[in-house]
């Protein structure tokens, strides 16, 4: 349960969480205070931050995403504390994945996509001029909805990232491979033949854990997961969920999921998104998962989690 202290009225606008970061902490000295518009009394969360870790790992300020002329996402501002699991929930088409892919700039691959506002990793804007997308992606890994191992051996899959980043030492690569596979809870199943066996011969759940191992191998700080278990059977899903619980010790995890039980099982915090009449996705609220699922502040959230919507 959250502490239950909520001061201030419930604002009627969709964005309820406003930067808790004091103005002026912006590293690059950009006009951060000027950009943050005046908002209704911010709803503060005194406890959760302390519970999970005081640091803010990821932050979005007034994020807007356009695909050509279509505005897909508008005015999303939220913070994601370090070493926590944050779930993104909401109906299909509300832009959860689009928002997720702003953290690692994967939207760059879509020629028509335009991102406005700020997306910050450790207080630094990942879209700032001079920031290389490849550098951002090394720190922010992404696990896809459908497992997508490369058509290579399990070993080569795992060391693919480190190899491409210039690591040549065999011993180091072997160490990384074993460590990553152990962390991804796949080691015991593949340790005998992971050098010869193709990643494609694994089951779906194993393939997804291989993809997680591959992501871990590049030593990221954040792991994004885009419906990582939606293509898996219940047992494989359970294993992925257990894995997420273990990984939260070391990484900041953001997971998009359609499965609300999953969100409530795996996450510390939950952000609920929906879309407006203009079909643009926006953030309704973000709060402790327990609170979202027991006593959300917004009627929209209440309707969605109780199945009256979407």
């Amino acid at each position, binding site marked *: 349960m959250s502490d239950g202290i909520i001061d201030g009225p419930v604002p009627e606008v969709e964005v309820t969480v406003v930067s808790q970061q004091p103005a002026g902490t912006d590293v690059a000295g950009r006009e951060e205070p000027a950009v943050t518009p005046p908002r209704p009394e911010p709803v503060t969360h005194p406890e959760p931050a302390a519970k999970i870790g005081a640091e803010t790992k990821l932050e979005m300020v007034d994020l807007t995403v356009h695909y050509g002329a279509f505005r897909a996402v508008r005015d999303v501002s939220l913070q994601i504390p370090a070493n926590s699991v944050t779930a993104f929930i909401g109906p299909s088409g509300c832009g959860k994945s689009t928002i997720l892919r702003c953290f690692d700039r*994967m939207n760059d691959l879509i020629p028509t996509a335009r991102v406005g506002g700020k997306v910050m990793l450790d207080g630094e804007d990942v879209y700032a001029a001079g920031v290389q997308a490849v550098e951002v992606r*090394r720190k922010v*890994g992404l696990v896809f909805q459908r497992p997508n191992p*490369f058509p290579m051996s399990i070993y080569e899959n795992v060391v693919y990232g480190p190899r*491409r980043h210039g690591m040549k030492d065999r011993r180091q690569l072997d160490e990384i491979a074993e460590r990553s596979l152990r962390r991804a809870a796949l080691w015991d199943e593949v340790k005998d033949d992971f050098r010869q066996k193709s990643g494609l011969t694994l089951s779906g759940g194993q393939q997804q854990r291989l993809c997680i191992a591959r992501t871990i191998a590049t030593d990221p700080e954040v792991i994004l997961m885009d419906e990582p278990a939606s293509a898996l059977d219940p047992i494989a899903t359970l294993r992925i969920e257990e894995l997420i619980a273990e990984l939260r010790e070391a990484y900041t995890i953001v997971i998009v999921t359609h499965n609300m039980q999953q969100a409530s099982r795996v996450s510390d915090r939950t952000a609920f998104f929906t879309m407006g009449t203009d079909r643009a996705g926006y953030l309704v609220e973000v709060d402790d998962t327990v609170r979202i699922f027991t006593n959300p502040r917004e009627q929209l959230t209440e309707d969605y989690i109780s199945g009256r919507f979407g």
Partner: protein
Amino acid sequence: MTRVIWADRAATAVLWGIAFFVIGILLAIIGHFLLASIGTLSLSFIFGDPSDSTIGGVGPVLFNSIYILTLTLLLTVPLGILGGIYMAEYAGEGRLTTIIRFSQELISSVPSIVVGMFGLALFVTLTHWSFTALGGSLALLVFNLPLLTRLTEQAIRAVPADERRGSIALGVSKWRTIRHVVVPIAIPGIVTGIILTAGRIFGEAAALIFTSGLSTPSGYNFANLNITDPRSPWSPFHSATTLSVFIWKSNSEGLGLFVHQVADASSAVLVLMVLVFNLGARGLGRYLQRRVTGT
């Protein structure tokens, strides 16, 4: 219900029939020339002395075919693959790419005799090279490069986007992603492209008649490795009749006592060469893919 079953059986039968028909044509071609060349096809037919007035000695001509094939592939394969990668990954969609694609299709479908005439004007007359293996290779390049570029582009485009994104998401640059994930996955398609290209090179006669010529210097000395010496078989600067041109020439001139036997046996050799080359290329492709994907 029974109607559905019968329709299914009929469709299956038709498809099997077509498949057998295709295989049948291939076997008929091979069989026909092997039967026709019984008694002619022997080791001396290939390795015999070409100046001997009896049957035999297609060795130099066969060598020319392989030589021009190799030279053309050396020019076509790197350019075609890089061009295909460019078209698939970097060119984007625009007026320029539309023009390029249109030109590719147009050039690929120009009759090869026309390409031969063009080669005659450019690589024979204008350059003052006269008839050379290099001129022949360049003429072949004219219509094989667009084909291989196109086939490579298609093979690259067929690589699932998720594989590509998987690599990009690990912070790997686009070029490295192409090199280490996309191209390895596309290798079978690229190899198919190379085989199709090579088949056209082996089989081409019209474009070569006017460019690499109808004669071959007598007395090939394979020990002569000086490639600047036009008499060396390894030099690209001498006229070189290929096997296909030789078959055309034997049949059309019809001089000599055994022309038909020679033409038939040469055809058998050509068909076998194409077969060996295709199987070899497939094997090489599989080996390459295994190497680059590490399985």
